[in-house]
């Protein structure tokens, strides 16, 4: 069997290594536009800040690829896929036949407007190298998602004066609600990073080199500008070959990660898989989803039918030593998606459990009888309860049932591990 994998990110690599583990005979060809072995884009901000050296960004070395005995074509783009003839056309004109094709083309950072000198994004290792080569004094980061905040902190630690701009009304808009976000903002401002929320960038000043940024409220002088407004799946190659692309912007796949064309699979940031909480397609562009999708694709390719349970989001940022974690929906997002299929058409009543104590803060978002999300700031890690709460959310268990167990010593002694989530539900201020 000839298997061709396009893309050398974590999805492509985990698919390759699992496939080799399951099938010793098949021929695997790995094609990637980038010439470096697998590295982790998630830790690039740590590399920019100087916390870790360049070699620690790499997850695998070229020796690891040799162990899997595959044909490695690094630095080659794929120009075209021919699903009828089952061949892949490389940019140098050579065509490679395949029996099964795995698309793991990943995503790219969104940038708006033209790229001048001093304007960066942070998705690839090359981007990080370019930021490090550029010596500046004043940086503006557009977008206050996890990447924006991490880049802002990294540049601040390199001695830049940093301003972070956010279009939405608070920082980390997809992970936190207003109150948690205002605490994060306060931490950033206390250290000396300016945060401007509810502001939209309008134009970039400077002809050759960036000189400043005009927003709808002010003009900020800067010599460095970093775009961190989000990621977009790379679907051009798939769309060109007639593979169906969903309306959320990723490649459409079924529960076995097959695309609309048989024998072509897709995994990683380029797909829109079903969200585990709602069951509706949503591009959750996270490392852990890509890795798991790679495993599922490899198992299906090797002939072991496996279903993908669904993707989920996980926010985990370190803001100057303060641990910010969150998963599932925020209250704002739930209000936005009230007509979800998961609720059977009738919008549920949303209730909130939240408590704060000095620097610690947590908030649980409950819709109807299901916990749909949780946010933590400096939650006590030794309590070891965050993961338990998350598995509770993923299992879609009823909150009513949990409260019944938590309130009854007899029932609780049969499930003693649930005692760890009791502090979250006990004595909490209930709103709504």
């Amino acid at each position, binding site marked *: 069997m000839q298997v061709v994998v396009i893309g050398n990110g974590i999805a492509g690599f985990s698919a390759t290594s699992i496939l080799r583990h399951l099938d010793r005979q098949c021929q695997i060809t790995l094609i990637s536009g980038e010439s470096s072995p697998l590295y982790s884009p*998630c830790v690039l901000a740590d590399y920019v800040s100087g916390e870790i050296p360049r070699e620690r960004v790499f997850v695998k070395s070229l020796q690891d690829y040799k162990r899997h005995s595959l044909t490695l074509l690094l630095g080659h783009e794929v120009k075209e896929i021919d699903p009828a003839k089952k061949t892949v056309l490389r940019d140098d004109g050579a065509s490679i036949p395949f029996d099964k094709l795995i698309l793991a083309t990943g995503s790219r950072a969104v940038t708006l407007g033209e790229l001048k000198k001093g304007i960066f994004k942070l998705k690839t290792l090359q981007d990080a190298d370019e930021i490090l080569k550029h010596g500046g004094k004043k940086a503006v980061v557009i977008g206050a998602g996890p990447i924006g905040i991490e880049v802002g902190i990294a540049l601040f630690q390199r001695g830049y004066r940093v301003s972070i701009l956010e279009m939405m009304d608070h920082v980390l808009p997809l992970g936190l609600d207003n109150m948690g976000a205002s605490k994060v903002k306060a931490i950033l401002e206390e250290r000396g990073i300016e945060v401007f929320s509810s502001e939209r960038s309008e134009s970039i000043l400077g002809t050759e080199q960036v000189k400043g940024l005009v927003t709808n409220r002010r003009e900020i002088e800067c010599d460095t500008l970093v775009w961190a407004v989000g990621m977009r799946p790379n679907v051009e190659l798939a769309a060109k070959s007639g593979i169906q692309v969903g309306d959320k912007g990723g490649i459409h796949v079924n529960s076995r990660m097959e695309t609309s064309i048989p024998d072509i699979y897709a995994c990683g940031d380029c797909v829109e898989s079903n969200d585990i909480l709602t069951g509706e397609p949503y591009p959750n562009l996270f490392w852990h989803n890509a890795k798991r999708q790679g495993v599922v694709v490899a198992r299906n390719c090797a002939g072991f039918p496996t279903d993908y349970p669904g993707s989920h989001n996980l926010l985990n940022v370190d803001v100057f030593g303060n*641990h910010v974690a969150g998963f599932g929906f925020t209250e704002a997002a739930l209000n936005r998606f009230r007509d979800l299929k998961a609720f059977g058409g009738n919008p549920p009543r949303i209730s909130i459990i939240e408590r704060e104590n000095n620097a610690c803060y947590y908030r649980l978002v409950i819709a109807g009888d299901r916990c749909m999300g949780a946010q933590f700031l400096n939650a006590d890690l030794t309590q*070891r309860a965050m*993961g338990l709460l998350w598995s509770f959310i993923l299992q879609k268990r009823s909150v009513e049932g949990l409260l019944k167990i938590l309130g009854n010593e007899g029932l609780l002694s049969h499930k003693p*591990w649930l005692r760890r989530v009791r502090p979250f539900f006990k004595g909490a201020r209930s709103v709504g």
Partner: protein
Amino acid sequence: MEKALVINPEKCTGCHSCEMVCSLVHDKECNLNLSRIGILKTGGGGTQENMPIVCQQCRDPFCADACITGAITRNERTEALVVNEDLCVGCKTCVVACPLGGVLYHWIKQCSMKCDLCEGDPQCAKACVYGALEFLSMDEWGRKKRLKGAENLSRLCEIIYK
């Protein structure tokens, strides 16, 4: 033969010996905060229960999926999931992700720590004098559980037919 660290919470007295040995073996000091295994003490008064919590070396580990640097891998010899401290950047994602609370954060080394089954010879099981922690092969464990079930059943029969 696949062996696992078996926990019998009803036998645990909460003496912390396992935690002491764990930190002593791994970090050369007796420090409950640096222990990979932890005893969850719950309830109060006469109803106190002790539950040792330690990584169960899941078959489908979520911590390894969540690790953004691929630092958590399975040791092929001992079948334990181990953290490569050179690769770990201390982002705490695995700590958040583990539903058991089996992965912890090492505040001194600034990286994740978890049970590595002491190279296939867990010292905590040796240190536990009450038999609350045992390192058994799956067959042996199953046999023990069945034996215990049979004992319970015979005791129940005695009560019913007396």
